[in-house]
């Protein structure tokens, strides 16, 4: 083989590889765009103002909305955050700042395992622990299930962002005679704050779409469910219920609900990225 033919074959191989990876990249992007477009087309078309303000109508009646599911989702996500974030955050602080080698290794390993537990298994756990005990479905059980799911990622993202804080800041604070807890609370954690908040928001966006663990914890409700001790409607479970129903207008409502849920998750994601970018351009080195 001469030099020029070898060069030509190398160019050819390069072009084939580039072409192949390009085709698959376009494929992946188009799948996402297709889902988004389809959901937008079907969802936005069926979305009306009453969707946000009214309760579901009973079968046969047209119209109605999912106001209770929107409030229910917000309530359950709020509870999940209250349960999952403090545990995850403090665990992450421990791993990044205090953990000794072997124990921290175990904690990290267990956290990764917990992250891999299927959401439906988490649901069974919450069902057994709360629903079976109190003998009814409740928002609290749903919040607890989602909160548990938030813990592993909250731990790991907090740990990662704390580790990214330059050691010079820790030493600078300690060298002034600051006790360690105070250096953490006033210098290290504030320096990692934007990253930690972003991690929590992405975490929240992730569990916002969870359906399986809610099916037998929060269940569903066609009416308002005040407090945290009643079966509570959420957007994902509503989508599930309505999409499986035999009624056409329910299907349309399910599309609308899917669209709203997606927009909600998208909004959380975009806000989170913006917070992280802002902190990259101003502050931390």
């Amino acid at each position, binding site marked *: 083989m001469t030099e020029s033919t070898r060069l030509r074959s190398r160019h050819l191989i390069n072009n084939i590889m580039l072409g192949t990876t390009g085709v698959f990249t376009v494929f992946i992007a188009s799948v996402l765009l297709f889902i988004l477009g389809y959901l937008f087309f079907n969802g936005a078309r069926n979305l009306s103002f009453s969707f946000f303000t009214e309760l579901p109508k009973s079968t046969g009646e047209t119209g109605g909305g999912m106001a209770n599911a929107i409030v229910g989702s917000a309530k359950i996500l709020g509870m999940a955050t209250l349960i999952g974030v403090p545990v995850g955050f403090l665990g992450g602080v421990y791993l990044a700042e205090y953990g000794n080698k072997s124990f921290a290794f175990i904690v990290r390993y267990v956290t990764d395992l917990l992250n891999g537990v299927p959401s439906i298994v988490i649901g069974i756990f919450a069902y057994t622990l709360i629903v079976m005990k109190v003998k009814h479905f409740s928002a609290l059980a749903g919040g607890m299930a989602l909160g548990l799911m938030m813990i592993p990622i909250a731990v790991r993202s907090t740990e990662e962002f704390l580790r990214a804080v330059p050691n010079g800041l820790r030493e600078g604070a*300690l060298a002034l*005679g600051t006790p360690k807890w105070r250096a953490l609370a006033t210098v290290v954690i504030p320096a990692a704050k934007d990253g930690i908040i972003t991690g929590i928001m992405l975490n929240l966006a992730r569990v916002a779409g969870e359906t399986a663990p809610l099916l037998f914890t929060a269940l569903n409700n066609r009416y308002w469910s005040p407090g945290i001790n009643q079966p509570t409607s959420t957007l994902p479970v509503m989508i599930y219920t309505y999409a499986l129903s035999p009624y056409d207008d329910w299907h349309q409502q399910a599309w609308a609900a899917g669209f709203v849920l997606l927009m909600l998750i998208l909004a959380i994601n975009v806000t989170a990225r913006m917070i992280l970018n802002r902190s990259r351009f101003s502050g931390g080195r």
Partner: protein
Amino acid sequence: MSAPMEAQERLEIRASESVTTSAPKPDLFAPGVEDKMKVTGMNFFYGKAQALYDISIRLPTNHVTAFIGPSGCGKSTFLRTLNRMCDTVKGTRIEGDVRLDGEDVFSLDVTSVRRRVGMVFQRSNPFPKSIFDNVAYGLRVNGGLSRAQVAEHVERSLVRSALWDEVKHKLHESAYGLSGGQQQRLCIARALAVDPEVLQLDEPCSALDPISTAKIEELLLVLANSCTIVIVTHNMQQAARVSDYTGFFLMGKLIEFDKTEQIFQAPSRKETEDYVTGRFG
């Protein structure tokens, strides 16, 4: 018959070689100058690796002491043992005696040791806070001051670190907006705010331009009136310019410690002479 004799001789030669740490001269300091810190027989280990060997030294009150030596010779490690910053690294071990005004630093509370022995690092490390809050940080940690007193201390520290005129109109802006030299002087101001008795600087000018370096050197000469200064530097001219006493470290040992003129003009050890004349390191 001659074999044991030879062995004996060899042993003596080796012993004299291994005593690389020169004994502190008793009459080194002028009369009336007290020891601010006194280290006796210090050995320091990172895990199993020994980083410092049998260091004994006295640091004179309100004077500038410089430490020179090639990279990795233990100068910075030595500094970090004086304010117990070495405690923060896992797996380290220290032997020997370190005294601050005659008190054993290992029996004192670590936060009080670090407040009394301040430290400025090689890379400036301002907190992601405003200029004012950076300087006020140590004051607030220690507590017990009114807002007005804190503001007063902040101003005084910034004046002492020769930064006040450059930042007085933007005290509440982020410290990250300052230049490298200003950031380093801010770190000095932050360390000075808590009125340390000893101020340690670990290559404070290594990332700075000559103008900023000159400012910091002037500053050290003034500070030495009220504070014991310890500076690690790679720049021998700097050591010669700012320090009263100089110690030369080599491979974890304090080879020689003497008046700065003595070290640079007539060192008593060959290693020191080789180093300060640039023959190695």
